[in-house]
């Protein structure tokens, strides 16, 4: 589904990704871990098409197509979804309206009939159950004044509505309380199908107890320096990153 080959990227002339290689097949779950500032969010945003980052080398194929030449909105309609580490507040735009517009954009793209506000309301109510989202948050402006945890839940609600093929969840677990972590994780599991794939960017092994990854990658200084199974996360939890950093320095 996703092939990243030798990806290099800069922001303001500073090199942040320095040769990423990653292959994700449909139905898989990949976790990306790594110290602060190693480039995890950069990678996630490049996949979504953020204009601040410049790809200087390498390629990204999504279902065989060159992802990098698509506009951010085209990528989304093709089925790429990024749950932001820091979801953006959009004043004056109601959450329900936003979700309906996004949903209908996708329907149109698939050549399907758009839903009117009433029809969409039913669909939204059903999807909101997946993340046990409070209905009161639907009529409020997108993320405005939402608590940290509510924002994260809202991201997963958007995922539930849009049903992406590839979902990249950037630290969706950070800021969630213990119950919310379970609810959101179960939500993500419910949204899994053999046809889609999930990339989890996280700092905590705990999330991976709920959502079991097929592979765990460690990103350090813009490169994937180690890949393993779910045990790798446990090992990191126990030992920290020093041994990885040393190994990387020695390499």
């Amino acid at each position, binding site marked *: 589904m996703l092939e990243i080959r030798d990806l290099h990227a800069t922001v303001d002339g500073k090199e942040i990704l320095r040769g990423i290689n990653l292959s994700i097949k449909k139905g898989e779950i990949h976790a990306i871990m790594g110290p602060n500032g190693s480039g995890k969010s950069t990678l996630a945003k490049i996949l979504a098409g953020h204009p601040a980052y410049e790809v200087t080398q390498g390629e990204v194929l999504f279902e065989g197509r060159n992802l990098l030449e698509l506009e*951010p*909105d085209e990528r*989304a309609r093709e089925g790429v979804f990024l749950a*932001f580490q820091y979801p*953006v507040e*959009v004043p*004056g*735009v109601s959450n329900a309206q*936003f979700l309906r*517009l996004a949903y209908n954009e996708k329907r149109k793209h698939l050549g399907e009939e758009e839903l009117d506000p009433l029809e969409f309301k039913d669909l939204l109510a059903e999807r909101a159950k997946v993340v046990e989202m409070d209905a009161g948050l639907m009529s409020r402006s997108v993320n405005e004044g939402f608590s940290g945890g509510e924002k994260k839940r809202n991201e997963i609600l958007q995922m539930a509505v849009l049903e992406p093929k590839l979902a990249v969840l950037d630290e969706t677990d950070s800021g969630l309380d213990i119950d919310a972590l379970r609810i959101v994780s179960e939500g993500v599991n419910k949204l899994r199908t053999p046809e889609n794939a999930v990339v989890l960017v996280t700092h905590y092994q705990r999330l991976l107890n709920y959502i079991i990854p097929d592979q765990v990658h460690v990103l350090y200084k813009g490169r994937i320096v180690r890949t393993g199974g779910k045990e790798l996360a446990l090992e990191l939890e126990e030992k920290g990153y020093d041994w990885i950093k040393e190994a990387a320095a020695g390499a």
Partner: protein
Amino acid sequence: MSQAVKEKSIYADAFREFAAARAGEPAWVERLREGAFERFEELGFPTTDEEDWKYTNVAPIARKAFMPAAPDQVEVVGVETFVSAEARRSRLVFVNGVYSPEHSAREAIPSKVLVEELGAALTGEHGEVLWNHLGRLSGEGDDAFDALNTAFLGSGALIRVPAGVVVEAPVQLLFLTAPGETESATFPRVLVVAERDSRLDLIETYAAVDDSEYFTDAVVEVFVGEGAGVTHYKVQDEAGGAYHVASTRAEVSKDAVYDLTTVTLGARLSRHDIEVVLTSPGASCHVDGLYLVGDGQHTDTHSLIDHREPNGASRQNYKGILDGKSRAVFNGRVYVHAGAHGTDAQQSNKNLLLSTDARVDTKPQLEIYNDDVKCAHGATVGQLEEEELFYLLSRGLHRDLARNLLTYGFAEEIVKKIKFDSIRAQLDEAILNRLHARLEA
């Protein structure tokens, strides 16, 4: 010099003709007009040398010499589309400055409440209300457009709400320009007297049936009596070739509330002067507005909130959306007199530029002559937030839709306070139409 001489004479013949045609009206009205015309002749149209008109050049209005529209009834179809649904049975309609009984309706107006066409009021039994109020807020000033309006005063409305009366339905005054009166001028004049503890919702609408070129010079005076509340919407959706110059002047008494919301969509050039005088303790006002202008449009809002007595409150929130090669001017003055202790005044003007050719000049002016006040003001000019745009794009919204939604979000703060669906819907559509224009372009 020759310029000034020319300006002085362009309305002289028209004025004599007009005055002669209105011969049956009371002598004091005649004197009011005479005085106003003399003042206009002295003042002439303002030039950009004057501080208040620095950014707004009205020379085209003088040059085009728009003459008063003929006082004839004009057939017009589709008036209903300009009527606010909430005011279907409480409205006065004017077509090219002429009152149209056929399109007006009063069933929803309580019989105690006076909503009368100005021409009839001038010769009717309500002379005293007029005599007591007309021109009191706009009479002596040095505003040439007010003077010109007063000189040609005769079309418009008188609204009087007696003490304690609550008017449930909004009263709409619809000033419509229809084909046939292109290149002419109208002088709408409105006087609102809301007596003690009364309530009134007023919708003042300017619209055009087609895209002609004309000049509207309007003056609205509003007296809000003790404990009364007037909510006033002004919707300016004139034709793309129109020139619209208007003043809204209100006097707010003790514990009374005046709530003005202006929506500016149309006209090639528009200028709105707002003056709210809080004359007694505890008076308050809201003066909010949204201007939405595109290629070739220029809009200018000048407001003055005059705090004269203690414990008054004023809130001003103006937002502007500019697209194409357009220009907006906002000049908000708050004047707090020495005796006006406990004044609470806030003013904000935020502008969103959707194109690099748009330009805004915004200037808050606070003049405060005592220490016991709470005043805050702020002005911003900005573009759409890149991070917000990316967020919407990342959910699959086409760029145009995303920009449009953010633009809508910017305006929403003003839109949501409008309590009539019809006006909100009109605004929604105005913002949406802009989207379609973009998508087609």
